[in-house]
């Protein structure tokens, strides 16, 4: 894991004191809210439906047990005993006091964390594969590249007043677990015919009001030019972005308006123009960063067998445990989706427990997934049973990874001032409806819920997506089918008129029944939908 050097620490510490002064001046009346708002947003502090909300950056979803423990401590000391893990691999606190916000940032800084660039028109927390460095199917660890982007763009003056927020994701595996094609820039680490490392560069994806799957802009970018090429793309966007219209400011709109070919031409031209400036991060700096991401000391000859005699444990292993690159090790997914629970929420005690378990069983490392779960990336198979027993005793052993009850849901109208409708109660009802053996019969089905068109709940990318809308002052829910955020990325299509709270749950049930009736051998819900099309689903839902 990356460790701050003295410069990183000095920057973050200075930022805390700067914010302490800004908050004090706001409270004393020296700053108006209009003056203060952009300053607090630069430190991840929003004013939400019930209170201030603080969004803490978890770079590419990776953290150690000391940091995780601090997140639990903050939840208990400054909030109401819990936190919410988000679809950007971050954590949000819902009940923050302005007068304590600088103290929280100081506590975060003491464990090499901050809330910088988690809001505003900046390059946001770079996201990545939650299995990075552990996955059996990756060609290299993508996180050093994510860290390089983070360092090269943090406080970079050229990227401090962008037209709009900007999201970058990096992966290095065939299976896309970071939804790279639904980002402003999606980067996939690949090797060319000569065995050299480089990136497939996708630009112009995104969800929100106008969703797009990013086109491939460059099939192979030599890895050492990652920064200059991103800079070229950002410059083209900065030059042409529709600053006159907030709904048209994202780079996806520019790529769409110019067309893939013309956008690519302009980026390549800009790149050639800036290459002589040598703005790329020197490889010696990359090597310095990469040295922090070497494998932990895996035990040679760790036993590969798992005693599956306890059927509940075996079920959990089959659903939540994933192949690791090292023999005798496994990747463990801790579901934050208990049946009837709030997706992504964890209590201070659960957060601290997961920190303890990471220290004990996973070389001190945890990951936050964009699906709002937690990963222990390096667990000895021989330790799985003991780990599972502790998780079970603490409500953290739901065996539902990628099943219909493993729902992504944004905070929605229960917490978010932009929301049209509540997301969480829909997730709770759905997980209660399907959270028995039925979800296993259905198999992989990614269900995603957003409380408004901003799509923080990734509804466009759900095999089944649900979008909350306001219909004459009451909550209404649209149903979408056929989305995917994976390597087979696609955008869901709306089935037709929306539903009320109970109606949407029934509609999902009808859709799953069509799948069960029509599926062929080996087909997931998404495969059947793609084969048979929308009509049979519409008939069942509205017929």
């Amino acid at each position, binding site marked *: 894991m990356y460790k701050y050097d003295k410069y990183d620490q000095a920057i973050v510490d200075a930022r805390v004191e700067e914010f302490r002064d800004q908050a004090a001046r706001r409270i004393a009346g020296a700053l108006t809210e209009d003056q203060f708002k952009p300053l607090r947003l630069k430190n991840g502090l929003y004013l939400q*439906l*019930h209170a201030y909300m603080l969004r803490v950056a978890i770079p590419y979803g990776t953290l150690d047990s000391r940091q995780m423990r601090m997140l639990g401590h903050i939840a208990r000391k400054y909030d109401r005993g819990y936190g919410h893990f988000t679809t950007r691999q971050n954590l949000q606190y819902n009940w923050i006091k*302005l*007068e304590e916000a600088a103290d929280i940032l100081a506590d975060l800084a003491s464990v090499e964390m901050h809330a910088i660039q988690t809001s505003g028109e900046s390059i946001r927390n770079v996201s990545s594969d939650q299995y990075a460095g552990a996955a059996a199917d990756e060609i290299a660890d993508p996180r050093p590249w994510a860290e390089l982007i983070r360092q090269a763009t943090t406080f970079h003056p050229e990227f401090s007043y962008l037209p709009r927020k900007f999201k970058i994701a990096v992966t290095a595996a065939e299976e896309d677990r970071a939804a790279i094609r639904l980002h402003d820039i999606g980067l996939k680490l690949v090797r060319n015919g000569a065995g050299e490392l480089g990136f497939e560069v996708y630009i112009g994806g995104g969800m929100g009001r106008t969703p797009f799957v990013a086109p491939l802009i460059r099939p192979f970018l030599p890895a050492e030019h990652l920064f200059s090429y991103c800079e070229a793309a950002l410059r083209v966007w900065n030059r042409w972005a529709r600053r006159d219209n907030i709904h048209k400011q994202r780079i996806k709109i520019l790529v769409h308006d110019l067309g893939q070919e013309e956008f690519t031409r302009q980026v390549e031209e800009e790149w050639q123009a800036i290459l002589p400036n040598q703005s790329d991060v020197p490889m010696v700096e990359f090597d310095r960063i990469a040295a922090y991401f070497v494998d932990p000391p895996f035990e040679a000859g760790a036993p590969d067998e798992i005693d599956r005699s306890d059927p509940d444990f075996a079920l959990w292993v089959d659903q939540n445990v994933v192949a690791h690159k090292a023999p005798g090790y496994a990747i463990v997914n801790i579901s934050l989706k208990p049946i009837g629970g709030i997706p992504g929420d964890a209590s201070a005690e659960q957060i601290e427990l997961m920190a303890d378990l990471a220290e004990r069983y996973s070389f001190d490392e945890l990951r936050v997934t964009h699906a709002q779960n937690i990963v222990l990336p390096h667990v000895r198979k021989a330790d799985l049973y003991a780990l599972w027993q502790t998780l079970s005793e603490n409500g953290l052993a739901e065996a539902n990874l990628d099943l219909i009850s493993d729902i992504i849901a944004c905070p929605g109208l229960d917490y978010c*001032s932009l929301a049209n409708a*509540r997301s*969480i109660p829909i997730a709770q009802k759905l997980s209660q409806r399907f959270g028995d053996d039925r979800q296993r019969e259905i198999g992989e089905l990614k269900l995603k819920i957003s409380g408004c068109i901003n799509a923080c709940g990734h509804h466009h990318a759900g095999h089944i997506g649900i979008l909350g809308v306001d219909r004459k*002052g009451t909550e209404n829910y649209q149903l979408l089918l056929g989305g995917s955020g994976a390597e087979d990325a696609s955008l869901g299509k709306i089935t037709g008129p929306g539903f009320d709270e109970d109606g949407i749950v029934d509609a999902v049930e009808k859709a799953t029944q069509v799948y069960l009736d029509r599926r062929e051998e080996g087909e997931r819900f998404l495969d059947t939908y793609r084969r048979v099309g929308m009509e049979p689903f519409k008939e069942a839902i509205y017929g």
Partner: protein
Amino acid sequence: MSMKLLTGNDLRTGEVTWWTGTGWSRFVENAVDVDEHGEAIATEEIGARRVNAAYVIDAVDTPEGPRPAHIKDRIRALGPTVRLDLTLKPADPDAGSWVI
């Protein structure tokens, strides 16, 4: 009967507050009809830093007290519907009944 309420957040704590005619309360039951005076009161109270981000909403006067007309403001008044243990009336099992 329809009415107008003035609501905002406490500057220091962020808590949702309601204008009572003489000051601010966390409980919507204490809110009063501000009629057409909401903007003027908001300007003065914001200036004195007794409230942040204040705005006027529509509400209905009921025998149980003022009820915000829009669901968003009703959720603001009570707390998240999915965490009734965190609402302003955690001991009252019916606390959420008027929100939805």
